[in-house]
């Protein structure tokens, strides 16, 4: 059987009853913070500086020559853990400037209600076309608004530097070969 133990309550001292020591010690903390570095921001007027490698909203980018880099290989769609990405592949018009790339997305949708900002799409992309950049605030009034389509993704992505110009090099080699008539001449 549990035994009930009655604890005796001691009467409060004068200092305790006046509450003054507590108020003073609280104010000490408050005042000390007034002279420290601020940890809050006046968001949204003031925006934070994002660290390098920050994973914001996934976006599609153009290369400095204005070519859309995505070739709709659909690897990001495959790797995406929450299945947020949906690509409709398409063929580039044979008459177009970038016809030698042959493939580009007809439609590219990322459902930001599903996206978990994991960055696997950026990691898997063989064409360096998708990047999680510095956009972190996605809002909308409906579910549809929260799905970024191709146009929106390119608008968010902008242009990023290219280190390879793989397709430009390929085009140059192809043009040179064509000028030689391939090997048939």
């Amino acid at each position: 059987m549990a035994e009930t133990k009655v604890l005796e309550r001691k009467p409060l001292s004068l200092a305790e009853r006046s509450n003054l020591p507590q108020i003073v010690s609280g104010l000490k903390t408050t005042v000390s913070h007034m002279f420290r570095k601020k940890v809050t921001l006046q968001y949204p007027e003031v925006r934070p500086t994002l660290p390098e490698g920050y994973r914001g909203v996934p976006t599609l980018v153009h290369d400095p020559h204005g070519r859309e880099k995505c070739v709709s290989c659909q690897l990001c769609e495959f790797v995406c853990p929450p299945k947020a990405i949906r690509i409709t592949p398409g063929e580039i018009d044979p008459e177009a400037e970038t016809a030698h790339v042959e493939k580009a997305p007809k439609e590219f949708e990322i459902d930001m209600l599903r996206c978990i900002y994991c960055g696997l799409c950026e990691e898997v992309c063989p064409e360096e076309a998708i990047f999680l950049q510095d956009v972190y605030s996605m809002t909308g009034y409906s579910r549809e608004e929260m799905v970024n389509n191709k146009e929106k993704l390119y608008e968010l992505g902008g242009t990023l530097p290219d280190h390879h110009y793989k397709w430009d090099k390929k085009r140059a080699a192809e043009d040179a070969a064509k000028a030689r008539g391939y090997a048939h001449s």
Partner: protein
Amino acid sequence: MAETNGSDTVTVYIDDEPVVVPKGITMIEAAEHVGKEIPHYCYHQKLSVVGNCRMCLVELGWPMKDRATGEPILEEDGSPKIGWGGKPGIACNQPVAEGIRMRTDSDLVRDCRHGVMEFLLVNHPLDCPICDQAGECKLQEYATEYGRGYSRFIEEKNPKPKRTVLGPRVILDDERCILCSRCVRFMQEIPGDDVLGFIDHGSYSTLTCYPGRELDSNYSLNTVDICPVGALTSRDFRFQMRVWFLKPVDSICTESSVGANTQVWAREGKIYRITPRQNDAVNDTWMTDSGRDLYKQVEAEDRLTTPFVRGIEATPVQALRETERLLRPSERVAVVASTHSSVEEQYFLRRIADRTGAQRYAVRHWGEEDGLLLSADRTPNTRGALLTGLLDELPKPDLRELGAAIDRGEIDTVLCIHEDPLACGLTVEQVRKVAWVRMATHASPADEHAFIALPSLTVFERSGTFINQQFRLQKFRAVVPGPAGLLTDLQQLASLNSLLEDGPVASVQPDHAWKELSAEPGPFAGLRFRTLPSEGVALDPGEHARHPFPERQSLKYEADSFLASLPAATTAS
């Protein structure tokens, strides 16, 4: 294991493991017997051997013999002394022989594969992100498995034409071609249309069509299937969907009574392509181009998606009850059976016809046969209609006999499966004169004169079995779901039968039908849908083999020798 065997087999040693294999095969096939894959590009099971890719290089050794006496030379421990070839040989062109040895994983073999892969990749473009073959590409697979893992090539790759149109259905990307010549050999050896060939030398070699010709054979898409890389691509499937998203389901081609085994590749309820599935008794590894287009019927504009009763929309169940109300009291019923229906559907239609005492009609759909995989009977299941007892003779060219019977007033209700009455010799007046119930997948002009329209599902949306020209029972499975709310043909016919029999209406799958089918004596006895092997089962046609079928010859069927091969009891009578 014994060194001496019966006359039909030999013992070979693969990586020191003795393996008994049939005579006449090659070492690459012997390795397959024990589940060992020797990498290869140009070798194809169903084509001649050229041995030009060199990917299957292995070390080969033979038991040595004394040249003077012909006596085997033995090691000190009494085992036969093996003479290993001085250099590696190709496994695809080495016939099996008694005691022959093969090393498939030695340092030398690995070196050979590194070398071959390196040469193949020298001029191969970095196209994987845009290449349709990615995901099922032998070059990708072998580069990972047998390649060196890094490139020493710093020169410029050799550019070649990228979008050569070879024919109405095939596009060639020359840069990706590894010159294995499978496509050339296929066109020579299977359709016998020697239209493809290589021109130019060395790294300039190019696949091309004979001048003035194009790759327009009805078998051209098989070259795309057997292309180990992404050089030949299908114009229909090109850039549509990456293969790793697609799920293949075993199916049967409904183009003709050949019943080519297929795989239908779909993603999320949408079909993207049809490829052949190997069945050495029916279609080897091939199928027609025209058969690959059939999936387009699923999303056709004119699909029937709503049941109609006297022009008013109804639910499938209401429409079936209305049909029952028509059929039950009538003494003058006719059924128009379809040889497009599956065996199970035909079985239930037969029971409906038996119960209502219906006259039975059917229309044949015959065309010219090409001697390969397109037979004269352009429906998949004429034999099924005969074996289930639905029909006792071959379908007629048209429905004029039914028309005459309607004109004579002998018919007042017609249950018509799949056929379009107006295209089969009936007039609008004849259709309007009776209560016409049409069960079909697609709309027809006759529908506005029909009493009841029962939408049904295409072969890609239902499961069942067909019996091909060789009386081979083969099963197909649903690939995609049908339009929302619709019942399968089997469900509709089984439910209608239950209604007429005052029995319970329940969900019916092919296996339920087979429970009843297999209980009847006859060719189906003991068979079940679930346990039917994927390559099918040859049935005993009995008397039915003697109908005057239109098929003469196809890849694996020859009418006269087929009849001769049947048990004597069948043909003698």
